[in-house]
């Protein structure tokens, strides 16, 4: 659980101590990494497709002001409604007011990270409206009272036994270890919710400016049901998730599906344009598009603008050795993994410890390597670190250590003296070439591993003797 005030370090330690989480993370990330690699290898020109995806996204952001206006106008021209929401509170208020004005009693929701960002479920429930998450993974964590731990696989941290127990408790079905049986249980339970719902809420993968359409991709069919059966459809879109032309989907959908799950295309891609037309048997009578800013319009002018190219495929989470070890909840924000460490300090700046997220990276570059739009995530993490230091958030000991380090590295005499001291010191506390526990403040480094003792002579001393 991402229950807040406990510190980032505590959340990390809890995650590292959780062996079933470790098993689940290994299984999921290995599978996703392998599937993605296979799907990209099968392409004639994977790099060309990624370059095109990056260029298309950057081109859309470069004219985000005009494209958003175009999108909104075309949605309205089809009889849809558009809400421009500058923050979570405005988006919440619009949707809660709409639900109340239309006497909505129950809502079916398909997966939307933007709705997590604005804590929509809590707001709707507080207003007395029942909200059911219908993506299987989201449903499981809603029953468990938790939050998603992965952008595209929200419940990867749950074992089948835990899911069986949740269904047993909440749905009254007998426990089982058969996964297809559990899936059918969820199908039956959720089907009635779809048929009875007054409103469906979805996220948006891409807004298509030239057609005034929103695109939703999924594998389960819950997004199709949520956007086709209820009387009202509300789509929530981060303002940056836009492409200029419908044809751009010919690149974007291909890189999204392959990067996310290794599929050639997701099972269902819905391209939705306003409410049902006259003569259409199904589809909603009302369509509302909530354009959520929540920090993005300012971020576009910052040194972090590149992160707005993100299409939320989750590939960087799967590739990240830190995410693989601690999972999504330890990050504490809505978005986890490398891209979460970039986005959370901007989108959720008030979370405690948020400045520590960019520290939780070895800057190995695996995230940038797999990113379908080639976001330079390690660079952005470094910028966050520099910002944190400028804002006076660095630990005083760390700051003192860094300034002594700088002095030492720029002065040959000090460098040699420090090297000698470290070599002598390491032999004093080491046993058989290993140091089990470094002295404070370095002791946390050796908590999970031994440190080697340093050799008796430095390289330059040996060089002088040899030559």
């Amino acid at each position, binding site marked *: 659980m991402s229950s807040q005030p406990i510190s980032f370090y505590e959340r990390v330690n809890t995650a590292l101590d959780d062996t079933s989480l470790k098993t689940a993370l290994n299984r999921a990330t290995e599978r996703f990494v392998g599937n993605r690699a296979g799907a990209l290898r099968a392409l004639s020109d994977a790099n060309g497709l990624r370059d095109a995806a990056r260029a298309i996204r950057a081109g859309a952001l470069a004219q985000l002001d005009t494209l958003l206006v175009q999108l909104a106008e075309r949605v309205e021209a089809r009889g849809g409604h558009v809400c421009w929401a500058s923050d979570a509170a405005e988006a919440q208020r619009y949707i809660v007011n709409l639900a109340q004005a239309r006497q909505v009693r129950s809502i079916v929701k398909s997966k939307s990270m933007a709705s997590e960002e604005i804590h929509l479920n809590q707001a709707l429930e507080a207003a007395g409206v029942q909200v059911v998450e219908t993506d299987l993974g989201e449903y499981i964590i809603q029953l468990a009272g938790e939050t998603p731990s992965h952008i595209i696989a929200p419940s990867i941290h749950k074992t089948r036994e835990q899911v069986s127990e949740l269904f047993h408790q909440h749905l009254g079905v007998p426990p089982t270890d058969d996964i297809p049986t559990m899936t059918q249980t969820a199908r039956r339970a959720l089907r009635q919710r779809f048929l009875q719902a007054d409103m469906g809420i979805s996220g948006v993968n891409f807004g298509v400016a030239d057609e005034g359409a929103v695109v939703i991709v999924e594998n389960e069919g819950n997004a199709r049901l949520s956007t086709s059966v209820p009387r009202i459809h509300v789509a929530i879109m981060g303002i940056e998730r836009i492409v200029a032309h419908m044809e751009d989907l010919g690149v974007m959908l291909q890189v999204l599906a392959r990067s996310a799950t290794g599929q050639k295309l997701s099972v*269902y891609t819905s391209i939705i344009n306003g409410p049902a037309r006259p003569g259409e048997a199904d589809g909603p009578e009302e369509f509302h598009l909530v354009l959520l800013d929540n920090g993005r319009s300012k971020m576009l002018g910052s040194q972090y603008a590149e992160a707005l190219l993100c299409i939320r495929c989750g590939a960087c989470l799967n590739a990240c050795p830190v995410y693989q070890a601690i999972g999504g909840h330890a990050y504490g924000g809505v978005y986890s993994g490398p891209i979460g460490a970039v986005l959370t300090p901007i989108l959720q700046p008030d979370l405690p410890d948020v400045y520590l997220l960019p520290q939780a990276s070895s800057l190995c570059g695996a995230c940038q390597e797999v990113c379908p739009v080639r976001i330079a995530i390690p660079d952005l993490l470094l910028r966050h670190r520099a910002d944190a230091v400028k804002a006076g958030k660095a630990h005083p000991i760390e700051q003192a250590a860094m300034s002594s380090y700088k002095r030492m590295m720029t002065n040959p005499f000090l460098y040699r003296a420090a090297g000698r001291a470290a070599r002598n010191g390491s032999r004093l506390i080491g046993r058989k070439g290993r140091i089990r526990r470094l002295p404070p403040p370095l002791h946390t480094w050796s908590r999970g591993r031994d440190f080697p003792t340093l050799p008796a002579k430095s390289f330059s001393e040996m060089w002088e003797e040899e030559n």
Partner: protein
Amino acid sequence: MTRSQILANLHTSLASNRPWLEAVARSAPHSIPPYVMPAADDLDAQFMAELHAIAGMAYPVADERAALTQIAALLADRPSPQIIAWEVEQIGLAGLAALLDQQGVTLATSDLHGTSRSAHLQNMEPLAICISGVEAGIAESGSLVLRHGPGRPRLASLLAPCHIAILRRSQLVRGLGEALALLRNRYGEEIFTSTSNLTLITGPSRTADIEMTLSLGIHGPPEVHVVLVG
């Protein structure tokens, strides 16, 4: 007003970062590839192989008569007095209306906008079969492109556990880019004039949300049967 505030922020932001974004935008062509995988010799075979790989079924048949026989066999395996379907003329398969008549199968009312919305939904829920036509088929992903609209309900590829789609060989294209170009050529700026929805369907509904283990049919149809005619 929020809209003008957001737009003002965007203007300010773009004043500083637009040159960088435009440089990135120019770093690669935006041309949309008609297809993205090495070209296969035979579109039908590629389509069928891709659909099989994702647990869909394909039935290549020589003509409309054979298509009707195939549909009759699928109906016989799943007896259902009513089905959820596109209007027969929208499916565009001669003889389908007569076949349904002969089997005593009627189309369920799927109109959700009338007064009996809830009754229609509850009536459709237990039905076993959906039948739809398609706009195009995409060979390299085994996908169907459905353009919904009057007489072409979305629920006719969604609600029941078995979806039967009628696809003509002549409707096959190689890749997604080609399918989108085809829609543009066919409808120009009018793609969405009479419909609120286009859907790409790539195999049966699936989930791997529990322990990364695949299950079919979590919300949409667990069975997708494509009758490939011609």
